[in-house]
């Protein structure tokens, strides 16, 4: 085992939140260690070929993959940021030591003075007969196969879930030449943006709300799926079953924050379904209940890359400020919080607002 590296700030996760945190901390004068289990920087962004929403001041209209490239470039040029890729953090000890497994190096350790956890979120699965057949995928996995590895996951797809991820991945399947037979959604309404829905509708893909998948069948892989309408109580209505000939069933039924490190650190965690599951209680600058441990991005509550980047900047800035007080810290925090509020102001962010209000109000 190698010696322990002692950076001032360690950031776990190099998605939009972690990259922004590393940059803000380094620009605030800290020396930073940025860790990710993947072999490139970017997190979810590296597979996002579509253009992002948001404010034109903050990379709106730019494709996710290009945002990752821009941030990655700035990070690599920053002398104060050391990068460990292919490195999975597996434990955080009470003495403040992070234990990680680094590809080709075995176990490595770091003992940062400040820690920013930006580990993102994991996809949820859905229980139905046949859900373990090859050909049943999470939408994120399908995106990785297609957009990172250039592998077609199937020919005819059923998408389960009409949130933004389900709609966007359906669109990307179409772009890859896969026929999307149908998008089904258990809720009464489409969860994602109407503009994303309109894009796949005009390509001929039906979206059926109040529908779910009952089972998937096939000998050794998916050959067909049975879907049905749901009643008000979310129960399948007998007689409405339909068999769809598909070889790919793609699940886009939500994400849940990846919080193992925060649990290990002893952060106070609360259950906020609106934010995707257990999330840490935190301050205005995203410091958890454990002093010196911050959280940012989807790990703090499932949202968007646009909010993840601002949260990352806020957390990174706060960590740098803890080490060496920064001039204009309060003013910059205020601006960042204002930008977050603006991004969360629309009707489609109502759920996130509700979750955050409960968290802040301590009613969890």
């Amino acid at each position, binding site marked *: 085992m190698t010696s322990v590296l002692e950076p001032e700030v360690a950031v776990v996760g190099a998605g939009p939140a972690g990259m922004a945190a590393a940059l803000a901390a380094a620009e605030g004068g800290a020396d930073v260690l940025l860790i990710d289990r993947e072999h490139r920087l970017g997190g979810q962004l590296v597979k996002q070929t579509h253009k992002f929403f948001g404010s034109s001041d903050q990379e709106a209209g730019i494709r996710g993959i290009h945002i990752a490239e821009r941030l990655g470039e700035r990070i690599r040029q920053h002398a104060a940021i050391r990068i460990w890729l292919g490195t999975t953090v597996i434990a955080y000890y009470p003495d403040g030591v992070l234990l990680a497994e680094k590809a080709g190096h075995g176990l490595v350790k770091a003992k940062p003075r400040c820690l920013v956890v930006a580990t993102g979120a994991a996809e949820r699965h859905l229980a139905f007969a046949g859900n373990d057949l090859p050909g049943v995928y999470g939408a994120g996995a399908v995106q990785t196969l297609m957009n990172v590895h250039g592998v077609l996951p199937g020919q005819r797809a059923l998408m389960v879930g009409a949130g933004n991820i389900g709609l966007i991945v359906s669109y990307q399947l179409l772009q890859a030449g896969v026929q*999307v037979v149908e998008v089904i959604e258990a809720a009464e309404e489409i969860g994602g943006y109407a*503009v994303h829905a309109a894009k796949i509708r005009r*390509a*001929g893909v*039906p979206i059926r709300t109040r529908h779910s998948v009952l089972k998937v069948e096939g000998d050794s892989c998916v050959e067909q799926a049975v879907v049905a309408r749901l009643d008000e109580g979310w129960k399948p209505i007998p007689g409405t079953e339909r068999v769809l000939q598909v070889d790919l069933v793609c699940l886009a039924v939500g994400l849940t924050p990846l919080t193992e490190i925060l649990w290990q650190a002893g952060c106070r965690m609360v259950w906020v379904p609106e934010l995707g599951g257990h999330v840490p209680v935190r301050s205005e600058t995203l410091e958890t209940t454990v002093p010196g441990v911050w959280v940012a991005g989807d790990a703090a509550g499932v949202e968007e890359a646009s909010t993840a980047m601002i949260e990352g900047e806020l957390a990174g800035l706060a960590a740098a400020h803890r080490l060496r007080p920064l001039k204009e810290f309060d003013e910059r925090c205020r601006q960042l919080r204002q930008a977050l509020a*603006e991004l969360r102001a629309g009707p489609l962010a109502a759920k996130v607002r509700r979750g955050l209000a409960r968290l802040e109000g301590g009613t969890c």
Partner: protein
Amino acid sequence: MLRKTGVPTDDLLRQVTPSEERLRRGPVAIFECFERIPCDPCQHACPTGAVQPFEDLNDLPRVDHQLCTGCGRCIQACPGLAVFVVQEDLDECSALVGLPYEYCPLPAPGDVVTLLDRQGRAVGQGRIKKVVRPGNRGETPVVWVIVPRGLAMTVRHIRPEGENRGADQPTGGHHLPV
């Protein structure tokens, strides 16, 4: 309905359709963006100021059709692929539609394509007039397609002849006079 089907209703479309008089005067942008989402690139892309400044990032785009030249920059910029440019009277029998198109291969001028409406139903055939490829900022390609007159507010997508990526759909509809 929009939130159940993903297809804007006629009522919503009426709200964003320019006046008859303006439609007759030449190409003009139609913003099919009906939901408050945090997004503003169309406003920054518009060179004539036709898209009014946003007070709040979540504002719907407000467009002064009198200032719009139909240049199509907003189509290239919009992440929602929600803007189209229509020119109702290209000549006696045809109209022109500029639409965002992010599929490979891009069509080429002269190609004959199947015209699709907002639900992906084939409504006729059209011919590609011009294709604006993405620049180095990853802009959305814009395809300008000649459609039968009267279909400018109907056609919102195209499909290369003989291809079908969505659900199994019947084809049919108008044909472009040759």
